[in-house]
């Protein structure tokens, strides 16, 4: 499949990496399940998901090359 996953802010405390490349997942729900198994601390973390820089609220189909970002609440400024 080949999904690129980005982690931001406090989520990198849970993952210890900022990005994963070539992850195999058909939709965002499957991707989350996979990531929650790999990084259990993500299960209780509050985060939003963007697919190719667009925020999504519901399960979304993924295709090769998509960039999925997991983002905790913003705290700029």
């Amino acid at each position, binding site marked *: 499949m080949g999904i690129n996953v*980005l982690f931001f*802010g406090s989520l990198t405390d849970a993952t210890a990496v900022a990005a994963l490349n070539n992850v195999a997942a058909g939709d965002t729900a499957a991707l989350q399940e996979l990531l929650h198994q790999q990084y259990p601390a993500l299960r209780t973390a509050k985060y939003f998901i963007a697919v190719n*820089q667009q925020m999504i609220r519901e399960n979304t189909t993924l295709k090769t090359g998509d960039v999925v970002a997991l983002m905790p609440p*913003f*705290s*700029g400024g």
Partner: protein
Amino acid sequence: MKEKKLRNIFTEGPIPAQKIADDVQHHSGKNDIGAHSIFLGQVRADAKDGGTVTAIEYTAYIEMALEKMALIRENLFAKYPLTCMHVHHSLGTVAVGEICLFVFVSAAHRKAAIDACEELVEQIKQELPIWGKEIVSEQLSYWKENK
């Protein structure tokens, strides 16, 4: 990739106070400007369990932040009669007392400049994918939360 060129808003490290004077001076040739509204964010030495904040380390999802900023900009120009709008946000380490955010909105009249500046600051805080990590010491830090 979209065709439109995105304006950068990010600066590595603190925003120098001198930049504010330079930017104001730079607008003295715009004879239709009557009002500048400026907002500056400065890093506070907040008290935390284990010490006080000495710096904030900023990271961002840069591409998404610039796309989002372009939309915010477009919407505010459509809503208010503005002349100029400039936003600068730090990335990396900004020490206590230094400037991490510089928002600069200009218009013919004060109401548009003031209202748009306030709305812009709120939108930057709420909508741009930027994160601050408050550094207390080498061993201790807290992820910042916006109110």
